[in-house]
């Protein structure tokens, strides 16, 4: 059960999502437009600073508080939820964890207030789950500066007018065993040689900002190295492990949103002389949707609980992400089916949920990668 303060936070975000996001987000989605005013207000209520300590301008909460906020936003809309998720998990957390005092002082207060966004550039056009082997982007030290060359794909929050920087993972040399040495380097927005291409046209998450980035002899000071040289791969693995819990929370939100919308609709919609909620075919669908949502929520609560207790949580995070993204996809399909023809219309939220659900089985580790991690945790990798 949630304690009072977590539950009060959940309710606060629930009201915000219902009153501020829900009435207007459909229009932003339709126009593929980033909702700056909503993001500003999310910042004003402290959502971007939830797991950031107060000394860095944050709320002094924890990662579970962030997950609760993501679930409540996700119930109404995934574009704003992923903007928050990426802004905190991928933008602020690596700086908080691995940044120098100077880097934190420079970037964290703005990020925690939601006034600026940070992005994390890992995936490349030619490589996804096969990092680091598939990585091509390089950074070489030259005269006290990093010179970056390469490109990054599908980078969230990287091209907004409030984007402050992109933390770029790049090959900075070869290790003794011949494998690439990966490091992370902070590239401020507007640095010469750093080009942000136009937004992708996406199937879903249409009101979020996703770009392809390219770097051509892009020079930044050597001091922009984030964390230790050669630790970039280990750093992002840690970032992704907790990010999976956050994506699970967002997925549970979408799954719950499908239940909310369907429950309302089956009272209103009549067929063959009665409300369709009276038919067992519909009731069983909604019961299944509720079951998936509930079990997925328990899975992410459990993973978050282990993480906050300092216990190993890699397997639990992978399970939560797998179960929750499946729940989101299945619920979106069922909710759309319940809505019938109206489910195929963009003016109803379920159509948006349907378009937004698929990416949850892909981003932050595909479902296949989650299964691989779970099998590995069960000791099945060396057979």
């Amino acid at each position, binding site marked *: 059960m949630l304690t*009072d*303060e977590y539950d*009060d*936070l959940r309710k*606060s*975000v629930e*009201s*915000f999502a219902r009153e501020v996001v829900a009435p207007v987000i459909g229009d932003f989605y339709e126009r593929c437009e980033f909702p700056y005013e909503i993001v500003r*207000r999310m910042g*004003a*209520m*402290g959502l971007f600073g*939830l797991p950031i300590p*107060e000394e860095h301008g944050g*709320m*002094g*909460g924890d990662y579970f*508080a962030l997950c609760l906020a993501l679930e409540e936003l996700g119930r109404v809309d995934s574009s704003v939820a992923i903007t928050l998720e990426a802004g905190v998990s991928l933008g602020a957390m690596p700086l908080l964890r691995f940044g120098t005092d100077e880097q934190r002082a420079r970037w964290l207060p703005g990020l925690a207030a939601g006034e600026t966004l940070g992005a994390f550039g890992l995936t490349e056009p030619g490589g996804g789950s096969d990092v680091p082997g598939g990585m091509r982007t390089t950074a070489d030290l030259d005269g006290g500066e990093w010179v970056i060359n390469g490109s990054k794909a599908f980078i969230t929050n990287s091209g907004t007018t409030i984007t402050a920087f992109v933390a770029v993972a790049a090959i900075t040399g070869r290790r003794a065993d011949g494998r690439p040495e990966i490091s992370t380097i902070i590239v401020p927005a507007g640095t010469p040689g750093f080009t942000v291409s136009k937004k992708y046209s996406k199937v879903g998450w249409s009101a979020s900002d996703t770009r392809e980035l390219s770097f051509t002899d892009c020079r930044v000071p050597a001091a922009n190295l984030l964390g230790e040289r050669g630790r970039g791969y280990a750093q992002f693995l840690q970032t992704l492990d907790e990010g999976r819990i956050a994506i699970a929370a967002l997925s549970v939100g979408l799954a719950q949103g499908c239940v909310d919308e369907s429950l309302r609709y089956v009272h209103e919609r009549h067929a063959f002389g009665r409300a369709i909620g009276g038919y067992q075919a519909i009731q069983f669908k909604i019961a299944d949707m509720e079951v998936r949502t509930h079990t997925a929520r328990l899975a992410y609560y459990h993973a978050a609980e282990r993480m906050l207790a300092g216990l190993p949580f890699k397997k639990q995070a992978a399970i939560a992400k797998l179960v929750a993204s499946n729940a989101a996809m299945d619920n979106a399909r069922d909710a759309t089916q319940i809505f019938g023809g109206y489910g195929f219309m963009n003016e109803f939220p379920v159509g948006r949920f349907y378009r937004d659900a698929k990416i949850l089985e892909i981003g932050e580790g595909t479902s296949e990668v989650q299964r691989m991690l779970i099998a590995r945790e069960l000791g099945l990798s060396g057979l």
Partner: protein
Amino acid sequence: MNIVVCVKQVPDTATERKLRSDDKTLDRDAADGVINELCEYAVEEALRLKEAHGGEVTVLTMGPDKATDTIRKALAMGADKAVHLVDPALHGSDALSTSYALAQTLKKIGFDLVILGSESTDARTGMLAAMLAERLGTPQLTLANKVEISGAGITVQRVTDYGFDKVEASLPAIVSVVEKINEPRYPSFKGIMAAKKKQVQTFGIADAEIDAAQVGVANAWSEVADFAVAPPRAAGTVVKDEGDGGVKTADYLASKKFI
């Protein structure tokens, strides 16, 4: 400046609201209690005035034990402390006796400015600000959509049917606000955590020197004589246009005395 905001817990308008069959008062157990929406605007205005002029914001609520949820919400928004007037003797008080009980409490805790929402979503009498001002002998500035403080003076824009009036008074004063006045903030996690440590003082009727013979359902000046569940909406009348649709529609409206 010492600002007191009167807030009220009301049944959630999104749920089914009921009256009790025994004493015909609101059944507060039947629905979730939430902070009255206009009270959030009152809290927000108090916080903005404090941020601009300094001072302290105290939340005052009269209500049953579970009204602590509403107090916590106002504290999480940023109010400094709270007074909870709670006593079984107050159950069923009408607007007049509520104004008496709150006025007695306000005399105890002191104030430069009292801010209220202009009405609640449950009783909707909209009289409390005026009644409080009468009982406390202060100016009343009601239906404000803008409040300005300068020294010991206060100026508000009072919303009217024809636009607005500019009303000035000296402090201490009572102000009621409308929803156009501001955009209430959503409690942040830091605010929620801080609220746990803030002081909530509980007053019974003796603490506020409230005369039991002037409050409660038995001493109310207004009384709910009877109530019934709203009848289900009847089917509408369909006028079929066979060339005389306009005439038929007019006849229908005339039969209902609309025209």
